[in-house]
């Protein structure tokens, strides 16, 4: 019995060895996100210099896709400004819509996740880290 799996190497690498996992002790921004459907939780801590994210950590209780997504996001957002990553988050969201076909180059590195979008029930898993990120950005603005 052998089947193709949605779990590809890159994704599994991130899931098994998530980057920037844990908590920053003195974060500038902090947010958590929760998936009521399965009880999964994620906490994101960010350290800023000016507008730029110069360090981040995610603490995840979640599935491999949630962990991989948090890990990939962390790699992606480091050394970028909050407004930049907010823009990316929106693009990522948009690319996960059913009717979107093209993936902008800016988020090409998130393709392993976007490829999973036919599995609509997993969208929330992929978005959990990014939801926390958007929350951080919102806190920063106000």
């Amino acid at each position, binding site marked *: 019995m052998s089947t193709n799996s949605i779990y590809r190497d890159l994704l599994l690498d991130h899931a098994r060895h998530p980057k920037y996992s844990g908590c920053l002790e003195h974060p500038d921004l902090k947010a958590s996100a929760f998936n*009521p459907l399965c009880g999964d939780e994620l906490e994101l801590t960010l350290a800023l210099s000016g507008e730029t994210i110069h360090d981040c950590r995610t603490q995840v209780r979640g599935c491999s896709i949630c962990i991989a997504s948090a890990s990939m996001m962390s790699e992606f957002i480091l050394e970028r400004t909050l407004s930049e990553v907010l823009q990316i988050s929106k693009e990522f969201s948009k690319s996960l819509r059913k009717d979107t076909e093209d993936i902008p180059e800016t988020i090409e590195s998130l393709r392993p996740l976007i490829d999973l979008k036919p*599995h609509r*029930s997993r969208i929330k898993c992929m978005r959990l880290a990014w939801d926390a990120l958007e929350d951080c950005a919102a806190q920063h603005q106000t």
Partner: protein
Amino acid sequence: MQHHPLASKVRDDFPILKREINDFPLAYLDNAATTQKPNCVIDSLLDFYSTHNSNVSRGVYTLAEEATEIYEEGRESIAKFIGATDSGNIIFTRGTTESINLVASAWAQHNLKTGDRIIVTEMEHHSNLVPWQMAAQASGAELVYWPITPEAGSTSVGLLELEELEELLTDSVKLLAVTAVSNVLGTVNPIAKIVEMAHERGIPVLVDAAQAVARMPIDVSGLDCDFLAFSGHKVYGPTGIGVLYAKKERLDEMQPFQGGGGMIRQVGRQSSTWADSPQKFEAGTPPVAEVSGLAAALEYVSDVGISEIQKHEKELTAHALNRFAEFSDLELYGPQDTCDRTGVLSFNLRNVHPHDVAQVLDESGIAVRAGHHCTQILHERLGVAASVRMSFGIYNEVSEIDRLFSSLDRARDIFLD
């Protein structure tokens, strides 16, 4: 026999219309009570149960993904059908009645206090009266009735006049609940104007669109109404499914309706937190198959074309009005002009009880309703306990109306010697 092009085009889509009743072809003229179902609606139920059936939202397996997609796409297509910009404003219920109860319980009860008023009209269906009575009693508020125009026989019978509303719109009014189309008089109310007047005083408006949704275009964004309710079964869809549209601002003011699976965020031992709208208002396993059937029904209606439907209904109504004018022993309630009304016509045959009329009509295969049609206040106002009602659907034909008028002769023969 005269066949209207629309009716003859669609009749084959409705398997039940092949039935014979008491050796006559069925003339189904009770569409205000419930409509018949086209094959595409029946097939969508069949397809759901034999191919995709599973519970929604919480499953990652293929069937669960499919069912969830059907459910959420249903929500989107329903939003689109009524002109809502976001499917998050669409809450699924069992029907119009439950939609209105939802607003009464999750919104009104928490926003009403002693001395507050709710405006309703004399032509409301019990489902748009009793929930407000219950909310009013729980909170100390009271109902104020917007009367219909008076005097049977006057030129304007069974209309709501905006000047009257003007007077009623005082500071203590916290909600106006009004039907878009009367299920007895057939009156088409000027909802857009009503909403505008209420909003000028900051008063939210609930529109009961149970009778409207199958008969005219609905555009909640254009109307700007706060709440709008309708039932699937009255728009060629299945039973067991209804819709509540609520504006974002109102949704934000609403407490949960029922508690249970699917509407929570986190459950603690003594208290819980709630999911976002619309899930917050949809406790328990939702009617997934029914949503699929309703989406199929609305697609069918769109394909037939709402303006075609309006035209067809206007023709039938005009014909019926002409026929009524022939008989002095028939009292027709409601507006006499097709501009003010739609194809719901209630009447009485003098000295014959509506039950008896309906029974005799049934003996000729004609299905009409007799009773107070869940509008006791209105019937009191009309001065009768009950009436006979014929109401049209897209498949009805002029010849069916003529059959009804012929059968009334039989009723005269039997009961009036």
